[in-house]
């Protein structure tokens, strides 16, 4: 299954990955190979087989009690933030 430049540009936009001009053909090539490779799955006999979302079957989600278990650690957590002002994470203007 071959991908083209437009496909790569679309995917990169969806995934918010800026690619240089030089990178684009490289990804077109490698992703095309990957999809040619995974195309093998088509011939697997999966009629009537359920998709397996979790490797251990039959387990159910645990329900946690409704308790507040946290205190304010803003100062610690914001040490890694590239840009913070008045406790807010700053980004270029969000236009609605």
């Amino acid at each position: 299954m071959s991908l083209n430049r437009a496909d790569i540009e679309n995917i990169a936009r969806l995934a918010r990955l800026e690619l240089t001009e030089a990178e684009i053909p490289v990804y077109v090539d490698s992703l095309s190979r990957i999809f040619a490779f995974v195309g093998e799955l088509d011939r697997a006999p999966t009629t009537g087989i359920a998709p397996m979302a979790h490797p251990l079957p039959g387990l159910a989600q645990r329900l946690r009690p409704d308790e507040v278990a946290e205190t304010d650690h803003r100062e610690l957590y914001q040490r890694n933030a590239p840009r913070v002002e008045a406790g807010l994470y700053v980004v270029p203007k969000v236009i609605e």
Partner: protein
Amino acid sequence: MSLPAAPAATVAELVRGLAAKRYSSVELTRAYLDRVAAAQPELNAFITVTGEAALAAAARADEARAAGRGGPLTGVPLAHKDIFCTEGVLTTCGSKMLANFVSPYDATVVAGLRQAGTVMLGKLNMDEFAMGSSNETSYFGPVRNPWDTARVPGGSSGGSAAAVAARIAPAATATDTGGSIRQPAALCGVTGIKPTYGRVSRYGMIAFASSLDQGGLITVSAEDAALLLGPMSGFDPRDSTSVDSPVPDYTATLADSLDGLTIGLVKEFFDDGLDVECGARIREAIAVLEKQGARVREVSCPNLPLSVPTYYVVAPAECSSNLARFDGVRFGHRCESPKNLTDLYSRSRGEGFGAEVKRRIMTGTYVLSAGYYDAYYLKAQRVRQLISADFARAFGECDLLLGPTSPTPAFRIGDKCDDPITMYLNDIYTIGANLAGLPGMSLPCGFVGGLPVGLQLIGPHFSEARMLNAAHRYQMETDWHLRVPAAFA
């Protein structure tokens, strides 16, 4: 290069040595730190060495021992793969994206091993975001195989495997999503264990593919793995996929007889892709196990050859979503002077991620996208069901499965970088266990052209004790696991 002498061969010996006061934890830690420093230019196994903190922890461990507190592992040094969050310490995941990220918390695995008294030497190099089979995708440079430094150690836990193989750390934590513990263990001639999915908490283990990732160990021996697996395992309320079932004492059954053990040789693993000499080493190992009392028979898992394509749909899909949080807003790399929101995201991510990571994010984004979800993602999850069913059937006929870990011994750095598929096929024997959530091990079983070969064991869910037992009995009869590359002896 001559390193200062390694204090002991195994963690088991260190445990005895510390208990017998033959040395202190501070002496041990200092000795390993010296070896780490000496080996670093050659191997590049570490990203961060936490020397001062290690010595302080070692001193506290010595105090605890003197006061009669602590347990057998108190004061034993080890190192953590840089995928585990370590509080107050740089946690990079081998990526430029997190090159400056100091984690504000400890992964459950790290906390568990610390509570057991171990001393952290530092953070180990790895393929970027655990994506790779050769440790060549790390932002911090490739790791080299101590057996031949022109060759790869395997990946993604290349640093863990190289460190243990060179005896610059007695043991290392690692993670395995498609073979990233077992394959590097095989290529470096050391022992690796990937537990059952849900056995070890994933809280604090930076996510690559959530339904496949599992934390585990790379050690010198199965006995060492048995000693360290306990404190790493168990139910964690902070991980919804963590299984609430009791953790056995893995050391208690290590020396059990193998009489009555049925081992299945997976027919599909002994295919044309397997290097002939590697195959020969595996067969020799099988003979050893048979002499120990195990019975061997052939089994077939006919859908296994589809594991690699299945994996390369499911894992990228999950990672494309898991890595969306890296956007330059709350942590991690942020581009200079973003012009607008889209620019902030696209440039920060474009700059912060390496090529393989971008490749997998794009693959994953595509297979989840409208119009392709059914044909790719759902299809792959159905094939996953088929593969799991194959294993379940096989375990109806035998207790453990056996095969090679890697199709070839370690290849040269730079050899497989052109075609991603060639690189992906390194995991052809290991991926199946991840898809089915099964535990797996690799143990050294000989050499080909001076390079180590690994034997793979796969067990049913929660059969770690059985696997460790079989591996230990094998290691009682052989000494492959005790070999050290001459340059690091």
